[in-house]
Each structure stands twice: as C-alpha cells, then as structure tokens.
C-alpha cells in the first residue's frame, strides 16, 4: 500500500466501513464464545493440574505442530490475497485464496486423521477410556474439553472454508475487484480469527506437559 494511503488509514476511523466495524463486533462475540471454553478449561485445569498434565502428554504433538504450520501459513496467504486484490493483482489474489483454502483443507484432513488415532487409542472419554486410576476423572475432563474445543474450532474452520470458496468464485467471476474488495477483506479477518483460536489451543492442549 502506498505511503499516502497508509497515512490515511492510520487513526482514521472514518476509513473503517460499517461492515468492518460490524465484523469486528462479531469477532468480539467469537472471542467470548471460545473464551468461555478456554475459561472452562482453565478452571478445570486449576483444580486438576496433575491429571491435565498427564493427559496432555498423550496428544499428538507432531500433528498439532503440523497443523500450526498449516494454519499460520494460511493466515499469511489470506492476508496477502486481500492485499493483492486491493492493489489490483487479481490473479495473484485468486491463487492465494485457493492456497488458503487448500491449507485449511489440509488442516482439516490432519485433524480428522488425528481424531481417528485418538479414537483408536481410546482417548475419547465416552465408552472405553484409556485411563483408569486416580487421575482418570481429570483426564476424562481434559479430553472432553479437547474434543469440544477442537471440534468447535473445526466447525468454525469448515464455515471458513465455505466463505473462502465463495471468495474464490467471486474473485474469479470478477465480482470482487480492487474497487470492491471488502468481502475478501472481511473473509480474511474471519480466517485470522480461526487462526488465533488455534494459536491458543495449541499450547493449552499439546504443550501442557512435555518433558
């Protein structure tokens, strides 16, 4: 973006459109949605520290880290896609949006595989559960929160994939252009929120107790 345009954006709330303000309010509500789950996790962990540490060691840190790389990169590509569209580089924007979608889809694929492995290892706290003994109650709760939180995240990611697909179609058909790029910008903001949730999910689920 040119220095002049940048200066205009800086501190000028008149430049944020109605829809952008609306979307940020929606993101604030999403922060509260996920925040409640993190809160439930936090309180339960404070009251069951050993069980949570023990249970977390059974998550697949390799798959979790791979997912980090995928989603962090997708956040870059979607931000670049929005920028390209703003500056008129339509074809680059299209490719970047498609790349974002692909990375998101790969994330989901890894997640599905991970769930599969978790089920096979009896980490689902329903029915036959892998853990018994003194810490089992806390471990059940850890995995309950694990599945609820990653599940809610996955739902939001799937919705994000739908939105990105719509953006791809819109840019390809010339509906979204450098003069009408707002939808893509807003989609990028939403996707960044999905990324943010994962930024916090990763340490609290995978890195509690690794030594």
């Amino acid at each position, binding site marked *: 973006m040119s220095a002049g345009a940048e200066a205009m954006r800086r*501190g000028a709330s008149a430049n944020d459109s109605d829809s952008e*303000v609306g979307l940020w309010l929606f993101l*604030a509500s999403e922060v509260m949605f996920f*925040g409640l789950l993190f809160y439930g996790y936090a309180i339960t962990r404070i009251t069951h520290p050993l069980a949570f540490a023990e249970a977390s060691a059974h998550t697949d840190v390799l798959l979790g880290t791979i997912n980090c790389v995928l989603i*962090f990169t997708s956040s870059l590509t979607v931000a670049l896609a929005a920028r390209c569209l703003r500056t008129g580089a339509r074809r680059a924007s299209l490719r970047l949006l498609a790349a974002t979608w692909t990375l998101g889809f790969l994330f989901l694929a890894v997640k599905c595989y991970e769930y599969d492995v978790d089920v096979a290892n009896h980490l689902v706290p329903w029915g036959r559960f892998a853990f018994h003994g003194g810490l089992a109650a806390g471990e059940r709760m850890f995995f309950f929160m694990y599945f609820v939180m990653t599940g809610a995240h996955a739902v939001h990611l799937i919705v994000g994939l739908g939105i990105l697909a719509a953006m791809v179609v819109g840019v390809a058909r010339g509906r979204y252009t450098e003069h009408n790029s707002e939808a893509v910008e807003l989609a990028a903001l939403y996707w*960044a929120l999905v990324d943010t949730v994962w930024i916090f999910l990763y*340490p609290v689920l995978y890195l509690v107790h690794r*030594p």
Partner: protein
Amino acid sequence: MTSTLRLIGVWLAVMALLGLSLGTAYLPMGRYNSIVCVTLAFIQALLVWTFFMRLRWSGLLVRLIAMVGLLWLLLLLGLSLTDYLTRHTIAS
C-alpha cells in the same frame, strides 16, 4: 519495506515463536512452562492481529472492539478465581 515483505516477516516471526514454544515445552521449568507458552501465544496473536488483521492501521473504535473481548474474559477469569483459589477442599 513493502507490505508483502512485512507480512512475510510477520509469518517468519510467528513460526519462530512456534519453534520457541515447542522447544521450551520440553525444558523442565515446572509451572513456568505454561506461563511461557501462553505468553508466546499472546505475542503470536498480537502479531496476527496487528499486521494480518491490520489493527496497526485501524481507527480507535476498531481497536477498542478488538481488545474488549479479551478484557471481558480476564474479568470472568479473575473474579472466578476469587472463588476457586480460596476454596477449602475436603480431602476424600
């Protein structure tokens, strides 16, 4: 620095923080493990929100909206801890 380079730079920083997070998780630091990795996550989120979500160039209203969710969650957690940290549990 052009905008594209800046975004890639932010991505590199986020990746570096990821590596740091993962690495320090294997160091036996006791309760500081959690503090370190959540702090690193906050820094990653701050980078994403400032540069990928363009808060650096947004007006005051949008910045306030961006902050308010976190503040409210801290309120929920903070006041709840007045309960959870002061309970006397009966050993079974």
